[in-house]
């Protein structure tokens, strides 16, 4: 007599991939805009990136309903912070808040795989990468989502110096220029779209630097 298994899951995976790269004075965050369920496409134009504060952006793949709920909670918490401190949250502060928020639901997690990117208090690029329950680390670059297994090894190859693989641990930002980083990101997604069925349609790239915030879009394979 085998135990009866649940035939309903509260979770779904809407697919998609996110990438972020930190530079000396900029940060690039990118995500594809395809939202899927099973083998179907729900939308070809759904943004996974949100601006949480002046200098913090978050891209999340996974279950988009949980992602949306998570975004709302963080936005509300940021408003409270602004009322109390009369200023915006810094990126490292937001990173900690995100970690705590995720762990708060340790026993019914947000099915969200997040990458937080922005500028730290010194104006240097910073990227934080998370698992679903809030374990996080500051890194020079990161990728999450369905295409991460294809993209991460490639980024390791290209951006070795800020990589945690290299000892002794080096400064967490890449020596690449902003335009080089953007090209690298485009290459990553072009390749991932070839082999990962959940990645494609369009790429949304958000670049954050001292002069502000800017968006770029790139068409990807639609199949």
């Amino acid at each position, binding site marked *: 007599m085998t135990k009866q298994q649940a035939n309903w899951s509260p979770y779904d995976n809407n697919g998609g991939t996110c990438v972020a790269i930190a530079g000396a004075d900029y940060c690039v965050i990118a995500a594809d805009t395809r939202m899927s369920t099973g083998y179907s496409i729900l939308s070809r134009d759904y943004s996974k990136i949100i601006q949480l504060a002046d200098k913090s952006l978050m891209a999340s793949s996974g279950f988009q309903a949980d992602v949306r709920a998570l975004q709302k909670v963080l936005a*509300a918490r940021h*408003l*409270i912070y602004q*009322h109390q401190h009369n200023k915006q949250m810094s990126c490292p502060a937001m990173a900690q808040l995100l970690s705590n928020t995720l762990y708060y639901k340790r026993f019914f997690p947000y099915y969200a795989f997040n990458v937080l990117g922005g500028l730290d208090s010194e104006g240097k690029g910073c990227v934080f990468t998370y698992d679903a329950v809030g374990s996080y680390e500051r890194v020079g670059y990161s990728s999450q989502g369905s295409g991460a297994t294809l993209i991460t090894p490639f980024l390791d190859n290209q951006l070795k110096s800020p990589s945690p693989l290299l000892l002794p641990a080096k400064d967490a930002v890449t020596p690449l220029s902003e335009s080089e980083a953007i090209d690298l990101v485009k290459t990553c997604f072009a390749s991932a779209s070839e082999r990962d069925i959940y990645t494609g349609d369009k790429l949304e790239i958000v670049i954050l630097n001292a002069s502000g915030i800017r968006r770029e879009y790139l068409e990807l394979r639609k199949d």
Partner: protein
Amino acid sequence: MFRNQYDTDVTTWSPAGRLFQVEYAMEAVKQGSAAIGLRSKTHVVLACVNKASSELSSHQKKIFKVDDHIGVAIAGLTADGRVLSRYMRNECINYSYTYESPLPVGRLVVQLADKAQVCTQRSWKRPYGVGLLIGGLDESGAHLYYNCPSGNYFEYQAFAIGSRSQAAKTYLERKFETFVDSSRENLIKDALFALRETLQGEKLTSSNCTIAVLGIGEAFSTLDQETVQRLINEFEVVGEDPPAEASAAPDQSDGAEPGPAAAAAAAAADDDDQETPAADQGAAPMDI
């Protein structure tokens, strides 16, 4: 005072049908330093006098941003005001979270009034000792409300509360008909004029007042000292009355003025300004 017998408890009526504790709470509002609000069809301006308890201390924050579309100016026990502002901010955040749209001011005002009423009907509570001038935007335009400690609320075209507010009210009563279609700049100038009335002789400078503006297409913000001083200089130069037409100078309503930390714990909760009681002594204030 001959009211002593029935004023120990907020839950005790007097034979004349008054709740003295609530009326005393309204007195606390009159003792606080002045706060003024005016509105046009599209904008609301809140202004207040900053009275520091001594030269050594900072002044207390009396104008709070509640949300992009709502701001509040308080008079009376500023600690009570701070706590109520926190409540209002929370309500706005929760409403936005649930409905993905801004909390209508009218709703917030009623919620606040109900909250104040509770304190007039519990023996273990005391009424809030603060009057709130709430300026906000909703689909029908700009609104200004006044919430009393009694739990009453009223909508106004313009109003002033706190010490020497009668002088400001007199000025506002003369001018209020022009406010509806007033430009943003003229509204601010009128606020400054009204504020000046409450200072009665003392010079109005950007260091003893705070001005905040919100309007359609303009999120709530406190004007920085430079802008305020420039406006004060403009109208002092011109003469007694504010100009009929808006001046071309575009106003920069920068982000929130970095208010001194609310750690004015040393200062008394309210400012002590002696004021002769207002002329409307006949009816109990909350019967208006």
